[in-house]
């Protein structure tokens, strides 16, 4: 029994109502261009200001199934799709009474009801959408794949409510498995109890608490000893941005240069959030922190953040990638590649980790903040290998306005127009620079 399902997502803001999806669906399902056959219906809103959608939601608790007297509808426990069985259907239309979304409808042209079936995991509508308004979100299948794996952190870590880092480390270790040694230098991750309290550890695998300055070199030494013993053990660092880019940088840079076999994960919450929200080298310009306050003399941080992922790319590591937990399937794909690369040499994952406590936003909004970071291009998702160069894993075209991201966060509440324009320039320039690397990749 699966616990999560893949689904078609609709980004209303990106849809211009062109109707390509409806034609593709009609073609796929009926070999016709007539939109009467389309199981996805795009409609301009009643005030013409937005685009609306009617299609099957593949509900978790489907009313159409409950309302069917002939057991012709059922939710497939493996795929999550609500299947329609033509042999059992009696054409009573009661399913259409159950659905409040217009997702299962009678098609007079064929004489029975029809509904979206996600095209067996390869939806025709998504493939033709020219605007990225339709996406096939496969993160659901991740939960099904790893859900049965053991969570290698104890329950009850004392992370703040809504903490993105806890979600990240639980997923990461679940996927990596128990053949691992974990290093958690000072920061939120040991702070929430992963290294334990009172002589007990918070992690079900070997974990240790290096200094901020020596995480990568300690892992390098441990790895060499295991190699000497003939045991293939994964070395994993779960470090904050301070432990990566500020005080931890020299040992990290050295280990990357020596191409030590380890997977170094930077959990970037843009500051020293565990010790009272001080500014770090990763804190973006304009951010309020306790050391870059907002007042008469100062309006948040004066200098820009450094782009650690890009810096690590310049080390020519075996694998470098950025990730966001709003795009879990993207993260898992990169984690698998990074893990494989760490058997050969140095792998670096930079994961953006919005912090409800330090950035001042409601705990329930974490994933939405993650998503907006990416959708505005404030951060970009890409990966790098020495042979293949840089490649974006999510399109940076058609970003939503940066203000959509900034206005979610208390730490930017004071920004004036000049600061917003500065941040926008910074976003544009970062993207231009990364795209130049992508061009090199394409040219080679």
């Amino acid at each position: 029994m699966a616990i999560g399902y893949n689904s078609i997502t609709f980004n209303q803001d990106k849809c211009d109502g062109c109707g390509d999806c409806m034609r593709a669906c009609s073609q796929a399902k009926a070999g016709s261009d007539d939109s009467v056959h389309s199981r996805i219906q795009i409609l301009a809103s009643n005030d013409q200001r937005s685009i609306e959608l009617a299609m099957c939601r593949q509900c978790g608790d489907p009313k159409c199934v409950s309302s069917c007297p002939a057991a012709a509808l059922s939710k497939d426990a493996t795929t999550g799709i609500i299947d329609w069985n033509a042999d059992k259907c009696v054409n009573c239309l009661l399913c259409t009474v159950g659905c409040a979304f217009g997702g299962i409808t009678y098609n007079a042209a064929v004489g029975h009801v029809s509904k979206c079936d996600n095209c067996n995991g390869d939806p025709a509508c998504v493939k033709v959408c020219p605007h990225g308004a339709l996406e096939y979100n496969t993160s659901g299948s991740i939960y099904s794949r790893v859900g049965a794996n053991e969570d290698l952190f104890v329950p009850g870590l004392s992370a703040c409510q809504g903490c993105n880092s806890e979600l990240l480390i639980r997923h990461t270790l679940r996927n990596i498995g128990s053949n691992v040694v974990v290093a958690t230098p000072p920061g939120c991750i040991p702070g929430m109890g992963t290294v334990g309290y009172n002589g007990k550890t918070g992690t079900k695998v070997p974990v240790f608490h290096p200094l901020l300055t020596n995480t990568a070199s300690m892992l390098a030494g441990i790895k060499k000893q295991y190699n000497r013993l003939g045991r293939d053990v994964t070395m994993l660092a779960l470090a904050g941005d301070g432990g990566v880019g500020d005080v931890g940088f020299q040992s990290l840079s050295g280990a990357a240069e020596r191409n030590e076999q380890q997977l170094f994960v930077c959990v970037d919450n843009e500051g020293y959030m565990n010790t009272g929200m001080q500014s770090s080298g990763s804190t973006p310009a304009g951010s309020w922190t306790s050391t870059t306050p907002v007042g008469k003399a100062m309006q948040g941080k004066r200098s820009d953040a450094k782009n650690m992922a890009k810096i690590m790319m310049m080390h020519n590591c075996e694998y470098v990638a950025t990730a966001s937990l709003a795009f879990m399937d993207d993260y898992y794909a990169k984690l698998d590649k990074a893990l494989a690369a760490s058997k050969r040499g140095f792998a670096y994952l930079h994961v953006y980790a919005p912090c409800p406590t330090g950035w001042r936003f409601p705990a329930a909004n974490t994933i939405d903040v993650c998503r907006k970071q990416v959708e505005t291009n404030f951060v970009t998702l890409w990966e790098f290998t020495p042979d293949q160069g840089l490649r974006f894993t999510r399109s940076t075209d058609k970003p939503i306005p940066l203000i959509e991201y900034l206005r979610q966060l208390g730490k930017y509440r004071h920004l004036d127009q000049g600061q917003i324009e500065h941040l926008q320039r910074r976003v544009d320039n970062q993207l231009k620079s990364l795209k130049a690397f992508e061009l090199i990749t394409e040219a080679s």
Partner: protein
Amino acid sequence: MHQSNYLIIGSSHAALEALAAIRVQDPDASLTLITRDKHLPYSPTVLPYVVSGRSQADNVSLKDQRYLDEQQVTYISGRSLISIDPDNNSLILDNGEQWSYDKLLLATGASPIIPPISGIDTTPFQVLRTLDDAIALRKASSQARRAIVLGAGLVGMHAAENLAEAGLEVTLIEMQTQVLPGYFDPQAAAMIESAFSQHGVSMKMGRKAVQIQPQGESGCSVELDNGEVLDADLLLVSTGVRPVIDYCIGSGINTEQGILVDDHMATNRSNIWAAGDVAQAQDFYSATKVVTGILPDAVEQGRIAGMAMSGDPYVKPYRGGIPINTYCFYGQQAISVGVSESSTDSEADSSEQNSIEIRVDADIGMFQKIIFKGDRLLGISAINAPLDPGIMWQLILRRTDLGPVKKEFVAQPLETGRRLMSETWR
């Protein structure tokens, strides 16, 4: 004495919805389903299709034994409820077994009404409420040449069409002057009626059977109130159903036509709920309580009862019954959501006026009638005009203000409804 934390009497939609809702909240408590039927759970609504042969009698189960096992449900079939002792949380079955419960759901459904027509008690006839009825009717129809159907409700109409399509000579007798009263107004009903006439069904509207007599082994003759006498080899009595509540006598459970329930499907006696065709619950349009006897309501009520019984904090009160009907006949579609006639709305204290919008296209057999109260939808019925009844149901239940889009709604209820749905439920 047998014991079960949750005891559900009945095995159709309301019972199964309650079961599912209980298991969400309480996966481990003992749960027993007891039904007077001898089969795995099925829906009475599917029975006309078993008669026609479109559905196979062994392929209509709503849930299989595997599901019941997975849900750890004890399923007892072929046993009916005789009496309840709410003071002691116990009840007695027809085999004398005594059961005690913590929570009891009565979802015993309904059974056919047999009208008091002279001679009916000595004449063989068919009804259609159980799977065994359907199997028997299918067998009888294969051996008959002429059939009489008493009552032009949903069951009678379905059966008349199926029997006629199977080659029988069919006469349909209805006391009222129209078919499907309560769901369609006389104009729409006349369109449906004429489709039957065109397909050779003899429609005797506004006629009463006054005398019935057996003829031969399984045949009968029926005398109408105008003196006309009709002969047939098969008589189907489909003059409506009534809730099965005989076991309530002496229990102190309040009943009228059905078991009276509050907005959480609870009866007046503690630890006892009722849902589905047996329940008499709040009407949407008036202050009275009604037996709706329709499938979507059974689902809704069963879900609420199950949530209430298992203490689910997310249970929401029942918003009131609305008549809903989807009906296909001779390849045509009829849909009705809410009231079909302006006068049946009894919100008399309202200062807003009812308005009615009717569109008819006789050439394509299209009919559409929309009834508003002010800017709110009260009911919509349509023949051969596409609609999303689930969306219409929500627009009525939520009393959605259609003022800004009323013109578009009247012109294009399908598209406008979908837009409203998407905007409202996003």
